[in-house]
């Protein structure tokens, strides 16, 4: 009995290490166990050490008054507001620069990408040099450079550069424009805008049906443009131009009133956009080149015009190649916005992860919050881009 028991034990041990399938399971189990043990050890260590110096892990400080001011706040905020409100101000500032950056970098990137393929030698080479220069210099330097240019070359408010007859003031404290103040009649314009969108949606389907049935092609783009932009403009003037403009006025040290784009925002926005645009340009170029030239020739042979060839044949296929790497550029722009701290733009890292952290001494808590926020922004962007990618995917028939 004893002998057989030992032998079966031996055989189990033997099999755990020598049976190919069991061995791989064994190794995986051991690796996971070690990994968990290591993570547990790290967390436990931090907890023990924080406990030992008497700093527990608590988020109570979020409800205390922050006691500091923030220059750019999209929501109501003062030094009396709690820390969580400062965090939201930071989140909104991060999102503002990320979204504005994504839009501008996409537009500039697509233009550069197409120009890069231009048969005009000069245009082609200028874009090539631009892309190579921008891609090979760290983005932090771009940010500092643009900020330096804005702050050092533009005049102080007293000598502000005026453009468009007082509609725009350029200073090194920011770009000031009049602020629209809406009157109640503005609702009519908004409704006209919504009607325009609804009409466009209906008209697009209608035009599609007509084309399928008769082959007749409507100028969908122009008519849509007229409906979405033209209709609200007509209503706007019919309603007696229901917008009052609040003009910025120089009062004491600074301009008062109006809308302001601060130099920190402008520098960060431009630097991030122009930097990321260089990468997007390369992605767009690669995407277009990935479509065989035979496709264009085939479309021409069928008598399709060059514009519609691009729109119906090349772009839909190129997008499939472009979208996945484009998503990671969008993620990069969001994450790179955390470099804002270098020039004093008040994003999440500067507010909750900077001043709040420093004034309360809650490093672990603040960093956890910042980490979780960036993670969720990135996951949301990924999810959206994956959804879009699925929509654009090749549908096999």
């Amino acid at each position: 009995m004893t002998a057989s028991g030992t032998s079966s034990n031996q055989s189990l041990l033997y099999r755990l290490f020598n049976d190919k399938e069991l061995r791989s399971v064994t190794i995986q189990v051991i690796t996971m166990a070690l990994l968990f043990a290591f993570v547990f050890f790290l967390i436990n260590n931090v907890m023990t050490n924080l406990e030992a110096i008497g700093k527990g892990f608590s988020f109570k400080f979020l409800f205390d008054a922050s006691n500091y001011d923030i220059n750019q706040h999209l929501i109501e905020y003062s030094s009396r507001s709690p820390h969580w409100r400062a965090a939201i101000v930071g989140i909104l500032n991060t999102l503002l620069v990320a979204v504005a950056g994504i839009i501008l970098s996409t537009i500039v990137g697509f233009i550069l990408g197409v120009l890069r393929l231009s048969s005009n030698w000069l245009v082609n080479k200028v874009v090539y040099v631009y892309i190579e220069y921008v891609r090979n210099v760290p983005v932090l330097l771009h940010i500092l450079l643009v900020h330096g240019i804005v702050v050092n070359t533009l005049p102080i408010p007293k000598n502000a550069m005026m453009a468009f007859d007082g509609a725009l003031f350029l200073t090194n404290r920011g770009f000031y424009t009049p602020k629209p103040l809406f009157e109640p009649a503005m609702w009519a314009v908004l409704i006209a805008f919504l009607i325009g969108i609804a009409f466009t949606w209906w008209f697009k389907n209608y035009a599609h049906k007509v084309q399928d049935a008769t082959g007749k092609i409507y100028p969908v783009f122009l008519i849509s443009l007229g409906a979405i932009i033209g209709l609200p403009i007509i209503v706007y003037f019919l309603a007696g131009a229901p917008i009052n403009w609040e003009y910025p006025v120089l009062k004491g040290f600074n301009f008062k009133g109006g809308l302001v784009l601060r130099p920190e925002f402008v520098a960060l926005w431009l630097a991030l956009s122009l930097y990321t645009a260089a990468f997007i340009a390369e992605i767009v170029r690669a995407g277009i080149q990935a479509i065989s030239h035979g496709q264009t020739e085939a479309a021409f042979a069928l008598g399709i015009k060059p514009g519609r060839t691009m729109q119906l044949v090349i772009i839909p296929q190129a997008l499939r190649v472009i979208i996945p790497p484009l998503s990671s550029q969008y993620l990069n722009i969001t994450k790179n916005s955390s470099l804002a701290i270098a020039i004093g733009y008040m994003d999440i890292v500067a507010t909750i992860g900077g001043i709040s952290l420093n004034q309360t001494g809650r490093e672990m808590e603040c960093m956890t919050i910042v980490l979780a926020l960036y993670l969720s922004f990135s996951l949301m962007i990924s999810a959206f881009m994956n959804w879009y990618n699925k929509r654009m995917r090749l549908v096999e028939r």
Partner: protein
Amino acid sequence: MKLFKTLAVSAAVTLASTSGVVNAGTLQDVKARGELNCVVTTGVAGFAAPNDAGRWEGFDVDFCRATAAAVLGDANKVKFVPTTGKTRFTVLNSGEGDLLYRNTTITMSRDADLKLTFLGVNYYDGQGFMVPKALGVTSAKELDGASICIQTGTTTELNLADYFRSNNMNYEPVAIETNEEGQVNYLAGRCDVYTTDASGLAATRGTFDHPNAHVILPEIISKEPLGPAVRQGDDEWADVTRWVLNVLIAAEEAGLTQANVKGHASKAGSNVDINRMVGTEGDFGSMIGLDKQWAVRAISAVGNYGEIFERNVGVNTPLGLARGLNAQWTNGGILYAPPVR
């Protein structure tokens, strides 16, 4: 097996290095290491900044050196850890530094909530404002609507918010990470005003091409007692560092200088205060885990408080700061060191 060994060793190393973070016995650690890790600023002229040759110099730096001289017998056995306003406490609390001498204002929340132990005051300061002379501003009360550059992570941004709120004025804060960048923004006209402790303003102005084109406004809007700190929970180390600071101040009061300290130490004189400090009477060094010569080494390395002050920030330096509050209590100041006895 090799992999397991590597893992075991790395785990042991991590355990050893991280569990060393919070412990008593910093004095033993420093002695064993043979080097004092002193947390200072990234560079404020006169207080702590590397000179042309890369050697750290300044008011705070000298206190670090005095501590190293007392503990290790050599004023050069100091590793300076430069930190921003934001990173200083983390660096100290994580054990990367042993002692913090970084123009740090003593406040209740820092003492209690950030788990620091402050050792005393080495510079009595207050927050002030600097503006270009061309603006024609003569009082801080005229600053309504101004753009103000502040160094982030300091008590200054809290004082600023309080001051403007209590005077019903508005301002645009421009939060800057380091003193150098603050200067750049201020000189470029991004801000009308630069604010920090009055001593820092003097230090900053001293580095400008045209210092006379800028004025420091008369209002001092806060109390900023600047002092050194150590981690909370190591009383032995706090005692050592506190008494090095005290003895440097007491030495000035007693007339003990860098030049005459060795002479006093050679034989007991008639002044019992001096005798106790230089170790010819009693054995005060052993009470803090050092020897009898601890204060002699500290004073002969950098001089007494007055000598440190005049050499780094005094009226004959580019900073040109008067002693003011920082004079001895016998000379109309509030510097008052507890006696060594």
